[in-house]
């Protein structure tokens, strides 16, 4: 009933090859010296792989509309959560996370909740 848009065996395998090639690429890039661009590049490759899988394997290509909308919305909200939290942490006036200007003390009362680790 949706043959026109269904992927053939060649298509499925082709996308699979692409995914494996991108995996190899991200691994090889890791062997190069690490720089500031290493994480963004790796995440970009992961995103490309994710889009490939969502489009071809998770049937987004055949059923536009709802799925695309929902996926976009969730990606947007993940981005909001991640960006805002990191931005706020990085712009603090004085570091509130150790190692900060204060000595770190163990929290009192831990023994009341569970046994100490070995």
């Amino acid at each position, binding site marked *: 009933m949706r043959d026109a848009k269904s992927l053939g065996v060649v298509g499925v395998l082709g*996308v699979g090859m692409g995914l*494996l090639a991108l995996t190899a690429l991200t691994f090889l890039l890791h062997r190069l010296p690490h720089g500031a661009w290493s994480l963004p590049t790796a*995440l970009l490759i992961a995103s490309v792989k994710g889009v490939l899988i969502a489009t071809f394997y998770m049937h987004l290509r055949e059923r536009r509309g709802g799925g695309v909308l929902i996926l976009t919305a969730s990606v947007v*909200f993940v981005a909001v959560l991640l960006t805002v939290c990191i931005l706020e942490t990085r712009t603090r006036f004085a570091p509130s996370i150790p190692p900060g200007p204060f000595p770190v003390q163990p929290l009192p009362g831990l023994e009341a909740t569970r046994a100490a680790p070995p």
Partner: protein
Amino acid sequence: MPHESTAEHWGSEAARAHAAHLGMWLFISTEVLLFAALFTTYGVYRSVYPEVWREAQAHMDVTLGTVNTVVLVTSSVLVALAVHATREGRPGTGGALLGLAALLGVTFLVLKGVEYAGHAREGGLPGEWYRLEALPKPGASLFFSLYYLLTGLHAVHVTLGVGVLTVLAVRAAAGGFSASDHTPLELGGMYWHLVDVIWLFVYPILYLS
């Protein structure tokens, strides 16, 4: 399932399949947001402890991680092939491919267990149990906590996915699906692909860069 009432409920089988897909996408979005909390924790602490993070990453087993990535991607391809085969009217082949994919899922879990054992020997355990002599800095135990949380939650999803794939494989082998009626297969496949995609993001941030 009361078929006569659902047919009236939805109007047609195609509309029902459409609804099932929409519901699955909503479920997937909740899964994405579930992991988002952990990714955010990772991002915040990475931005606070960049050096410690790099040193801690050196203790990851990149080989096993990469092999596991290839294993998961391959199983995803197999699931996609299984859906294709079923659509072409060969549900038996589809069932076999699903079984293979489930086996690869088990392989993934076994390799993950080997990896965990390695970390445990080294002392790279989460939170209070952290005993890694080579890296006694604040923040390093956070990396390992997050490593276990991310991979552990993912492993729970892999385990569930293996269960789903196995059930689908058995149903396919028993002739439960046909070219026109295979929505559960598509949905189960989508779940497995989701598990794969999440790993594709976990892999670079923990092992590579």
